[in-house]
């Protein structure tokens, strides 16, 4: 049974001088607990689609269902959204940053500290609760952003190129941490990325989009033996480069 259902999504942006069609006839289903990636050339509307799924703005046409419930700007399902950069609030401590979602949703105050501590433990930063973001490295900050996203126990995680601003080493480490953590919490997740390797290493299925207007071009299933492995180990696996070549060629053919 599908957990996330995207039905006939069309979307156009209007400016003073023109209307630009960015998404055309997008249909896709994602199972509960599945990790999928959206890749495609720039301008294929990946981020727009993610924002529509998040309920940040309505699509021109079409519907999104999460767990059977229709998403709209008035009825945001519980989604967790991670951006390119951590966007931690510099004037709040790490603990306050992690619990900001809970505060917004006005959940009881007592549990905040417990949740924050447990999550910081989970992401391997148990002692930074009272520090401020500027005292942490880029990789640590993005880990805190992951904790902030998980704190509200979202139904689905939307990851909008969360590793693109990091150095390569931090990126590889964080990939492993994200996959491991999401598996442990059995979260459904969509990753938007430019990096084919990252998509293969982390996901169970890869959705390839073509641009102008954005349409769903092809879906690749990642073999189950790779899904078992951590992203780092997938990159070392002999099958990895074959899949990379297949997706690469398909991406090239889009021009």
């Amino acid at each position, binding site marked *: 049974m599908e957990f996330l259902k995207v039905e006939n999504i069309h979307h156009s942006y209007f400016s003073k001088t023109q209307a630009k069609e960015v998404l055309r006839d997008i249909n896709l289903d994602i199972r509960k607990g599945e990790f999928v990636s959206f890749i495609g050339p720039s301008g294929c509307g990946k981020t727009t689609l993610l924002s529509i799924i*998040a309920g*940040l703005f309505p699509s021109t046409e079409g519907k999104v269902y999460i767990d059977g419930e229709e998403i709209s700007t008035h009825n*945001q399902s519980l*989604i*967790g*959204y991670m*951006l390119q*950069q951590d*966007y931690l*609030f*510099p*004037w709040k401590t790490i603990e306050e940053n992690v619990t*900001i*979602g809970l*505060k*917004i*949703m006005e959940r009881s105050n007592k549990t905040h500290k417990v949740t924050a501590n447990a999550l910081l433990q989970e992401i391997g930063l148990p002692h930074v609760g009272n520090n*401020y973001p*500027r005292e942490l490295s880029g990789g640590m900050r993005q880990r805190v952003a992951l904790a*902030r996203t998980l704190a*509200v126990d979202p139904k689905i995680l939307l990851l909008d190129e969360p590793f693109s601003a990091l150095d390569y080493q931090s990126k590889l480490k964080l990939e492993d941490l994200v996959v491991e953590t999401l598996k442990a919490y059995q979260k459904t997740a969509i990753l938007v990325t430019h990096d084919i390797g990252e998509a293969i290493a982390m996901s169970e299925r890869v959705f390839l989009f073509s641009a102008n207007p954005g349409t769903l071009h092809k879906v690749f299933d990642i073999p189950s033996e790779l899904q078992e492995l951590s992203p780092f180990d997938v990159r070392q696996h002999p099958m990895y480069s074959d899949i990379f070549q297949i997706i690469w060629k398909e991406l090239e053919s889009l021009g």
Partner: protein
Amino acid sequence: MFKQYQQMLKKEKRYVRLYQLIILLVFFGGWELLSRFGWIDRLIFSSPTHVWRTLVEKVSDGTLTLHVGVTLMETIIGFVAGTLLGTLIAVVLWWSSMLSKILDPYLVILNAMPKVALGPILIVALGPGYFSIVAMGALISIIITTIVVYTAFKGVDPNYSKVLQTFGATRWQIFREVILPASFPTIISTLKVNVGLSWVGVIVGEFLVASKGLGYLIIYGFQVFNFNLVLMSLLIIAFFATIMYQVVELIEKAIIKNNG
């Protein structure tokens, strides 16, 4: 090496202080000498000793405390009111983008207009008293505060708001958690500008109507040709304006300690 560097810094700081002191001494000493030897008109430019004598006299008969108190009060109230109202209007403009579009040209006009020119109208409308002087002190800083703070609100990285939106935050929550704290450094820096502006507004207001205050003393001294009094008032204003500025700077340091 590091010790040497520290000592060098200390030495440099001492020199800066020394030269600052020299400038101060040369200024007052030169003033005194020029006036003693009659190279400048003693009647107009007075001299430090005469100013000092006037100060002692005014302090001992108790009138000075009253004048300083009145002006300080008016300035502080005008300053706080101007900053608060200006920020409040900025909040309203941020809240309603429609309203901000409508009001945009009027803000430009009001900002360009010299506010002290409104003085006579204020006095007629609010009566000749403390109230119109305070209003002048506030009015002079409201519009510029509105414009600067509103620009700061709009300049906050929208991705910070997006983070909260994904948690389903209301507009008010976004304002309280993101927009306002992110704009604190700008609000504080307008405070520094407003300190100076409020002094201008209040002193001009006192020129026009007051029977108490330092602005009144300046005008009175001018009318009776007692420039000892005028210069004394000027020095007192310089002194208190500096103190207010320093206080604002202390507040700034305390508030934006962790905003970097």
